[in-house]
């Protein structure tokens, strides 16, 4: 095991705890937007795919990379878009009109 992997494990553990504490506080009202938002954030995997396409190290990695970038980008764009649409709909009671 090299130090990079150990660093990675520390980061994973800390991020897991932060995620747990932060997400525990999300109101059940917003669980659907929560899932679509984490989905969009998870599509950060696109960065790995971009490097594969850009480096063009082999034909296989290039082709798989292009498909991967397309799949992840659709999640980024679609995920943020639908989360924002959902959140815009949540409104509090209007004060009764005079």
């Amino acid at each position: 095991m090299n130090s990079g992997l150990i660093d990675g494990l520390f980061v994973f553990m800390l991020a897991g705890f932060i995620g747990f504490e932060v997400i525990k506080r999300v109101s059940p009202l917003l669980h659907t937007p929560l899932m679509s938002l984490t989905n969009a954030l998870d599509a950060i995997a696109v960065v790995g795919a971009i490097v594969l396409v850009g480096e063009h190290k082999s034909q296989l990695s290039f082709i798989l990379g292009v498909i991967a970038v397309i799949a992840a980008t659709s999640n980024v764009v679609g995920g943020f878009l639908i989360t924002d649409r959902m959140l815009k709909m949540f409104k509090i009671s209007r004060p009764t009109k005079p």
Partner: protein
Amino acid sequence: MSTNFAGNQVIIEALYLVASALFILSLKWLSAPKTARHGVWAGEIGMVLAIAGTLLHHGIVDYKWIVIALVIGSGIGVPLGLVQMTAVPQRTALSHAFGALCVTLVGTSEFYLRTPDVPRFTMAVLCMEVILASLTFTGSLIAAGKLQEVLPQRPITYKGQNFVNLSILGIAVAVAVYLVLNPGAKQLFPVMIVVPLIFGILMIVPIGGADMPTVISLLNSYAGLSAAAMGFVLNSKLLIIAGALDGSSGFILSVIMSKAMNRSFTNVLFGAFGQVQVAAAAGKEEKSVRSATPEEAAGILAAANRVVVVPGYGMAVAQAQHKVRELYDALTKRGVDVRFAIHPVAGRMPGHMNVLLAEADIPYDRLVEMDEINGDFPQTDVALVIGANDVTNPAARTDQSSPIYGMPILDVDKARTVMVIKRSMNPGFAGIDNPLYYMDKTLMLFGDAKSFVNSIVHELSGNTH
């Protein structure tokens, strides 16, 4: 040249650091409806910074195809972001599939670029990444198909199913172990993709529609964990963080959902719930119910002080949420206090009912969680159940032989009058008989949820003239 490279590297890492912080803030701001939209913006900025940083990567020689792929991806993403709110569960399942596809493909490329010199730990993580991601890919596609009703929603079960499924997963794990010990065994790698792809299908096929909230959450968790594993392989802390956040989010939601159904993960995944229910439904005898017309229902609602509406998947299927909003308006205008009781597993994904009711412009402070509203049912004049069934079934409290015994329910049977809008007395999708329907205080309103609510609204507005 080397200084330039180092300089770029610092900028890239700094951008990734800021992006990671923004991702955490994004989820933090999502915790309350007031700040939630800031959360989306923070996430978007973080994503743009991360992608910009990646484009500075020194090894990138080909920008043309990156741009083409980003444009095509956006072209697919926009319509997926504009779907109807009722289609959100299947859209979510589909996006889990896309995320998992990306991770599977990157993992596969990394293996073929690096073999045979892959350190053992890296290879182990890579195997985990590919197995989790490929089973999530097909599993999510099947889940999306079931939710879209392209595939049958009923659980498909056969004898020895769990044994078959676990054996298949066992094959994948055995191949993974072999690959960790012999990272040069290129010819075996495709087996480790294809076998989990098959497992993903077989895992979701036996799961019924009512279990979808738990399953979607579990798949969400798997998608996150596979992305975190990819972060280890690529040595990217940003990916590890994003994957850990997504993984813990899916995990928390899975725990909440399975608690709300009083079941364990293993029971959801290996329980084959459907079979028990068929047996329970077969033993039911004829009992009498009282039914009412829209006029009668409108009269009772208009005379009430406190009304609690209990929405369920049936409301989503009938697309009745906008009519429910009209009912809410009509009753509120008459001074009736109307609230909505939301069971955690009502609908097909966590929070499904909240989104549908918010779409229909019902203020979110009127949507009340199960634990908060249950104590208020005895003081409630009318509980109006629209398309919900199991989550209102008092057998869950009293009947130890019921397959849903122990599941927390909304105590609608404690309200003074209960009204249930239902198509017919056929046992619903789950096939469990509901004693609520045979109580003296219960009135059955037979018909389509949308048109029945419409008739009630019509009666209420007609009376004001």
